[in-house]
């Protein structure tokens, strides 16, 4: 009798918000809704897709940047969308793929980390956070099979190891630690190419921000689904840095200056690329 009570209490003790929802409010999970499109196979659902995210390490942390475009087929669904979010004090995530589900997953992930922190009184380790995100992406696998995939990029400052780390994921939730730099989304190939030439070890923070914006510029140059810096509307990529002091969103003013310098340099070079 006592044994079963103890077991029950232990089984009910969870620090995970997702587990709590799964048990008590499954309808609130972004990937648990019944979805009946598969019979009408053929045309994939026309929904906004978020595109390119780049991230890289620099001396003392990581930087992550995302462009501001969402596309729906050949239509630009949004010029203002933000795809890089702070996950908690020491980590950020960027999302590519189906925007609606990705934004909900991000919200869930943010609550998940804060919930753990409040229940346990300590922060999750960076690996712990990365694993939780992987589990959420795996939860979305059924939707991914129907064309509604979400692929995040996760970066954070490991307070134990005192360094910035990057993690990429596949649609099955597989988690891969990346070295130096990485990119996801439709323009990632071009961004990756730019990163390979621009990134070098021990960049300073402002140099890393500049490299991130320039690689997104190159991605936008060749990928129609990625938006470049937009001086007309004064729209710049969303850039976060994470270091020992925590995550910080780079101010619009700084971004405008960096983007301005890059555009000027490209114009002055008078070359095709």
């Amino acid at each position, binding site marked *: 009798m006592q044994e079963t009570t103890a077991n029950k209490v232990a089984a009910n003790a969870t620090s995970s*918000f997702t587990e*709590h*929802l799964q048990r*008590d*409010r499954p309808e*609130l999970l972004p990937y648990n809704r019944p979805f009946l499109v598969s019979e009408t196979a053929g045309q994939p659902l026309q929904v906004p897709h978020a595109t390119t995210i780049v991230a890289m390490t620099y001396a003392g942390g990581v930087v992550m940047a995302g462009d501001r475009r969402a596309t729906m087929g050949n239509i630009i669904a949004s010029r203002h969308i933000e795809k890089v979010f702070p996950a908690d004090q020491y980590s950020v995530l960027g999302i590519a793929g189906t925007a609606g589900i990705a934004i909900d997953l991000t*919200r*869930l992930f943010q*609550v998940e980390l*804060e*919930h753990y922190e*409040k*229940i346990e*009184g300590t922060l999750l380790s960076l690996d712990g956070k990365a694993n939780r995100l992987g589990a959420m992406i795996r939860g979305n696998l059924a939707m991914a099979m129907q064309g509604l995939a979400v692929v995040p990029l996760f970066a954070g400052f490991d307070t134990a190891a005192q360094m910035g780390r990057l993690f990429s994921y596949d649609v099955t939730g597989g988690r891969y630690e990346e070295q130096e730099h990485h990119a996801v989304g439709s323009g990632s190939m071009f961004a990756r190419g730019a990163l390979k030439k621009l990134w070098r070890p021990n960049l300073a923070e402002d140099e890393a921000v500049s490299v991130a914006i320039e690689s997104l510029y190159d991605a936008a140059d060749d990928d129609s689904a990625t938006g470049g810096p937009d001086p007309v509307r004064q729209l710049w990529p969303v850039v976060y840095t994470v270091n020992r002091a925590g995550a910080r969103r780079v101010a619009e003013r700084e971004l405008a200056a960096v983007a301005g310098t890059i555009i000027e340099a490209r114009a002055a070079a008078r070359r095709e690329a």
Partner: protein
Amino acid sequence: MTQQFYVSPEQLMKDRADFARKGIARGRSVVVVSCEDGIALVAENPSPSLHKIGEIYDKIAFAAVGKYNEFESLRQAGVRYADVRGYSYDREDVTARGLASVYAQSLGAVFTAEQKPFEVELAVAEVGASQDRDHLYRLTFDGSIADEQGFIVMGGQADKVSGAVETGWQRDLSFAAAIRLAVQGLVTDNESPDLPAKALEVALLDRGSESSRGTRRAFRRLSDADVMELLAEES
């Protein structure tokens, strides 16, 4: 077959209430003070890891006296309630009033229906944009709820402590002054005349967390060093 003796409902409730009061009176006190800079929560608690004060949500904190396992389960339930609500509606829609009424209902249900009542007393505090919009709720073991102004004192010798806090309380206290006031109150039920920072658990709900620390989460736990510094500061 044994037959149960008849016990009148009045007697039954009185016995339960006495039982709960006895349990609560054994514990050390907790003081929650609303002040100019926000809300200060101060508890006498020698353990650095078993907290009596906790964060519930952006602007909401929790403080408790009584049995640890009972108020800890209530705290966790509160965090779940707030997180589910904030996730399914919006962060703004999580209020201390909603949380306090859920607590009142659960405490009331346990008091009447369970084998034994919870031996706890809770405070739910919400910091507002201005001091007039601060909310302090006190919840007792039987599910009664009271909306308090200025400060809450709970626990063992609450009357004595409360007297000391009441004489010193003003609207425009700073955090440092509010913490000092709470400590002055807490020492009145103590044998030794002063409390070392190690024996205190102090947390703040910062009114200006957005502007000063760039976070909407107002709750901040103070380390022993911070507490020592604030207590040493001259008023």
